[in-house]
């Protein structure tokens, strides 16, 4: 039923293709994305040039997307950048969901903790996501893990609110009441009876978080506060390319297109999932 939806098909298809590109990056005619060759600086897309590997071997190489001011191959960098974006998007969504689900279940089920927990969440929500992420990255040295965590933190309150509101509805259902009267422990009720009924809306929410996380990672890298510049990410490539944007727009153009297409695919997938899995939410938006 889900697979019959065209949004799911298109979004999922594009994502599957990107995943394939990420996994197969070394075999798609790429060179080491960090390799630079002073002789092949600032090449236009499609120009042929040479690149010398660390072993001193000189390869003939066609720079499909041109090269940057260090003579690095943009095509290779963009392809390897796919890995970072997908990993960050997926991991941030999973972390936000994991923490959000636990907090939401606790807030929705244990009423005495509800007030305190939700006030903390409101506090986090009062600060715009980009600022929290920037602050967290400034706090720890930027690495893959810290960037993922920094992006996940501002998303946790949203998941918590969603789960909490779902729990508040589900806990009134007869089967939960039945479980309570049988003396089932609270943790078992939360995870075995309530949690399975929140999966569909969470899946939809998770997709949107994933899209936002990919976007935010690129923004952080682009501002120079994200992953270290030696890691090829789309944001980093664009940050390095922006200095000479006027003369060589391809440095910004190609990673930008990849970024936009990826986020678009995830968003379309999310819309499709929402329409098929969560018709109630589809009407609301």
């Amino acid at each position, binding site marked *: 039923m889900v697979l019959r939806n065209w949004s799911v098909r298109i979004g999922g298809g594009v994502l599957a293709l990107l995943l394939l590109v990420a996994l197969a990056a070394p075999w798609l005619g790429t060179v080491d994305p960090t390799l630079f060759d002073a002789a092949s600086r600032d090449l236009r897309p499609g120009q042929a040039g040479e690149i010398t590997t660390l072993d001193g071997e000189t390869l003939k190489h066609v720079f499909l997307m041109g090269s940057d001011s260090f003579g690095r191959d943009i095509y290779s960098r963009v392809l390897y950048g796919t890995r970072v974006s997908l990993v960050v998007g997926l991991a941030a969504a999973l972390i936000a969901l994991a923490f959000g689900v636990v907090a939401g279940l606790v807030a929705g089920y244990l009423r005495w903790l509800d007030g305190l927990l939700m006030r903390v969440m409101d506090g986090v929500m009062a600060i715009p996501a980009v*600022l929290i992420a920037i602050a967290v990255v400034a706090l720890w040295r930027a690495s893959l893990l810290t960037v993922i965590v920094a992006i996940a933190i501002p998303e946790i309150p949203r998941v918590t609110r969603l789960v909490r509101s779902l729990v508040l509805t589900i806990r009134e259902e007869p089967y939960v009441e039945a479980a309570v009267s049988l003396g089932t422990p609270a943790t078992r009720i939360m995870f075995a009876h309530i949690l399975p009924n929140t999966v569909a809306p969470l899946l939809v929410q998770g997709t949107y978080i994933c*899209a936002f996380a990919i976007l935010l990672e690129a923004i952080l890298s682009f501002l120079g506060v994200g992953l270290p510049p030696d890691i090829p990410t789309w944001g980093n490539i664009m940050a390095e390319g922006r200095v000479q944007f006027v003369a060589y727009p391809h440095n910004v153009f190609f990673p930008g297109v990849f970024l936009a297409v990826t986020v*678009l695919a995830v968003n379309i997938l999310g819309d499709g999932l929402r329409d098929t899995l969560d018709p109630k939410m589809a009407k609301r938006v």
Partner: protein
Amino acid sequence: MLVFLLLRLTPGDPAAILAGDAATSEQIAQIRASLGLDRPLVMQFGIWIGKVLTGDLGQSFYFRIDVATLIGQRLEPTFALAGLTILIAVVVAVPLGALAAWRFGGWLDRSLMAFSVLGFSVPVFVLAYLLIWLVSLQLGWLPVQGYVRISDNFFLFVKHLILPSLTLSVIYIALIARVTRASVLEALGEDYIRTARAKGLPEMRVLVRHALANAAVPIATVIGLGVAILIGGVVVTESVYAIPGLGRLTVDAVLARDFPTIQGVILFFSLVYVLVNLLIDLSYVFLDPRIRY
């Protein structure tokens, strides 16, 4: 509070950055003492919160002036950018959303929905460079980047702001148009619309006075919530267009590990966000006379 603790636990040493590479460890220690960084964390926090309450945000490590003064200096560009963005977004998005709902399922509706998904997906800085390339470099209509103060030259001020505001308004338009469409659509299904049509009111009047007026509260709400996106967008847009506003200041401060400035700016942004949403909450009284506080 959160902001303070988060930032002070960072491993980067601002004293070492300020002193430069050639400094001896005695010099660094001296700078640290003069900035108050040698005192225990709790004391630093106590001093900071006490000063914030009296309007003193401390002194910037990097710019060597009061953070409050610094924020004041950077206020104009950011407010001008945000103000023009909101203006463009509301003027474009509300009529479009209402018309899309009016002709639900029509070409305008479908293209607007496609545009809004696109608007959510294309990152602000990608869009910014696309617009710079097209409007400034290819067509040569507007300056590439920079900022002119309103008091210096009003014409140039507007000219420099158009492109950044357009860039920033796209995602905002997507958001507002979507919500306008949804809430007008809901209002159009109500009985009073049928009554209004039955008594022969012109269609425009039905749409504006009856449907749109009843959809005003959710639209106002989303304009307020969208300010969070706007603040994030301001940080990026100001960096791309080299506008010396608060967003640019945030990035510079993070790169220089200038804690008082980072704290001050984040505190300021959060305050503005909360305040805007409070004002929006209060505006419900005017938008919907049934609401009373």
